């Protein structure tokens, strides 16, 4: 790889790019300003929207579009590369720390199962429910993309599975990571249609079943193969970890700018992993969509025609996933055409899809930040007496206004990182600078649509999903 050729004829475009960014930066700040001012609409179903929904949605879409336009001013390859190559080495965690993490993981699993079966039967008074949905799925998952992926050390299923012997049966390579895609879609499906979030007994049974499947699978295929190819949770955390600044490498820990590891070119391999990323993004959307009035009305109408409710849910679930895959695949056709390249769509998708992980991380924060902060006092209270928690739990119902502002800022930040990662991917793949910009047309349109759909979901009053009898976080 040689950069001299570029440097030789490069006008001081780095300077020009910085100058332009400084000049037009405030534009973006103003474009995104109204959204921040309006953040209260995110907070709950009862707040009235002070600006019309269409304006709220198009402001979000406009902010994403503006960030694409802004990024298009940065065309200096060596500058883009220098941002992505910046990093430093950190001392590796010692064996003691790893062992402590393993013990904590297994202890957490033990407490979850024991309290899930033996503790109080109602949802938020049971420590198992709080541990899984608040501490783990809300708080811990955030640490995988904000700090780094520590799941390989903490993962209690892996620790337990590695204790037993393994047949090391050869894994059929043609399956790739498709089992993890199916597993992820299955888990989300279960979470949406069952009262997994309210019923501690069901939750404990699910956790035990998950542990059983993991241990059996590892016994057949080997721990390494199971947790890298089949296990959906490990795959999700590994991918979220690529958004984070800290990464575990062969010789210790490395620190990089958040999101820059997404453009490494080693994040995804093959259509299976691309589909996994899209499924990860789709998960939040479907989970939120079934709690909208639009879905309630549509589902009620279709069920009224005599279709079984569960079939309506299942077919819509698959159709929505197909739509997401289709939209992303279309954007890669656009990248191939406007990028003027013969690189295959799959190869393009391997480099562009990681940008979506930053968006998924941003929306995860938006969904869970206030939820986790609000329930932390309840977690502490219940943890003090898991088998006899008080009937009234302390919950922070009124959080300061800046919390929802922070949520929205993180959603936007996720989008900016995503736009930038797609920009860098274009520049790594394509020799023409203009082609590198044009190759992002499709994915920018997809990101704008996704933002508007997601903002619509979070700003729409949420209702109980029909026909399910409660459930869902």
């Amino acid at each position, binding site marked *: 790889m040689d950069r001299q*050729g*570029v440097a030789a004829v490069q006008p001081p475009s780095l300077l020009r790019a910085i100058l332009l960014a400084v000049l037009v930066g405030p534009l973006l700040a103003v*474009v995104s300003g109204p959204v921040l001012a309006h953040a209260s609409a995110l907070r709950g179903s009862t707040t009235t929207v002070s600006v019309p929904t269409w304006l709220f949605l198009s402001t979000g879409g406009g902010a994403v579009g*503006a960030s694409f336009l802004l990024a298009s*001013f940065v065309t200096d390859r060596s500058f883009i590369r220098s941002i992505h190559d910046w990093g430093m080495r950190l001392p590796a965690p010692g064996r003691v720390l790893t062992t402590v993490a393993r013990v904590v993981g297994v202890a957490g699993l033990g407490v979850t199962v024991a309290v899930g079966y033996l503790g109080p039967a109602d949802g938020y008074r049971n420590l198992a429910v709080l541990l899984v949905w608040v501490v783990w799925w809300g708080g811990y998952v955030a640490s995988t993309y904000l700090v780094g992926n520590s799941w390989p050390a903490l993962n209690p299923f892996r620790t337990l599975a590695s204790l037993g012997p393994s047949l090391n049966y050869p894994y059929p390579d043609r399956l790739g990571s498709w089992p993890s895609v199916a597993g992820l879609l299955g888990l989300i499906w279960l979470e949406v249609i069952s009262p997994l979030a309210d019923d501690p007994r069901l939750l404990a049974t699910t956790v035990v079943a998950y542990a059983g499947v993991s241990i059996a699978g590892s016994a057949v295929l080997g721990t390494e193969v199971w947790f890298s190819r089949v296990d959906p949770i490990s795959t999700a955390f590994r991918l979220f970890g690529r958004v984070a600044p800290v990464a575990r490498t062969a010789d210790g820990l490395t620190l990089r700018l958040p999101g820059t590891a997404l453009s490494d070119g080693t994040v995804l391999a093959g259509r299976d992993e691309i589909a996994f990323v899209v499924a990860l993004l789709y998960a939040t959307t479907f989970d939120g969509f079934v709690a909208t009035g639009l879905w309630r009305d549509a589902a009620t109408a279709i069920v009224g025609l005599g279709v079984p409710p569960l079939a309506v849910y299942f077919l819509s679930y698959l159709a929505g996933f197909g739509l997401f895959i289709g939209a992303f695949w279309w954007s890669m056709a656009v990248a191939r055409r406007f990028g003027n*390249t013969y690189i295959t769509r799959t*190869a*393009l998708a391997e480099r562009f899809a990681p940008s979506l992980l930053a968006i998924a991380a941003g929306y995860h924060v938006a969904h869970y930040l206030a939820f986790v902060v609000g329930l932390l006092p309840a977690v502490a209270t219940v943890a003090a007496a898991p088998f006899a928690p008080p009937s009234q739990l302390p919950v922070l119902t009124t959080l300061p206004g800046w919390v929802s502002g922070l949520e929205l800022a993180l959603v936007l930040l996720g989008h900016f990182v995503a736009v930038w990662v797609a920009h860098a991917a274009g520049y790594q793949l394509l020799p*023409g600078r203009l082609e590198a910009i044009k190759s992002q047309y499709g994915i920018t349109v997809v990101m704008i649509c996704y933002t508007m759909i997601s903002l619509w979901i979070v700003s729409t009053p949420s209702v109980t999903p029909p026909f399910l009898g409660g459930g869902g976080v």
Partner: protein
Amino acid sequence: MNTAADTDTTESDHPPTSISAGDATEECPYCALDLPDGTQYRLHLGVEHYDQLSDAERERFHEAYRAEADALDRFRIIALGGLVLLYFGFLLVYALLAA
């Protein structure tokens, strides 16, 4: 600076391509990447293999690079226009709604 080993890495590193019948293709002599037309081909040579090029090839790359810079300037004007339109468009709409 570019050794044979470097070229080998590039060769195995380049992303897979697919060409349909009737496409005009040029293959990079250094890394075997298929590229569509003259401009993309010349830019690729200059960006990835500058040290290995002859003077004539370098000159062709610089020419393509300059031509691209002109196109890029035109794009930037449109992009800046787009930003201004977005900014004042939203400003206007919000001002109208606030009134």
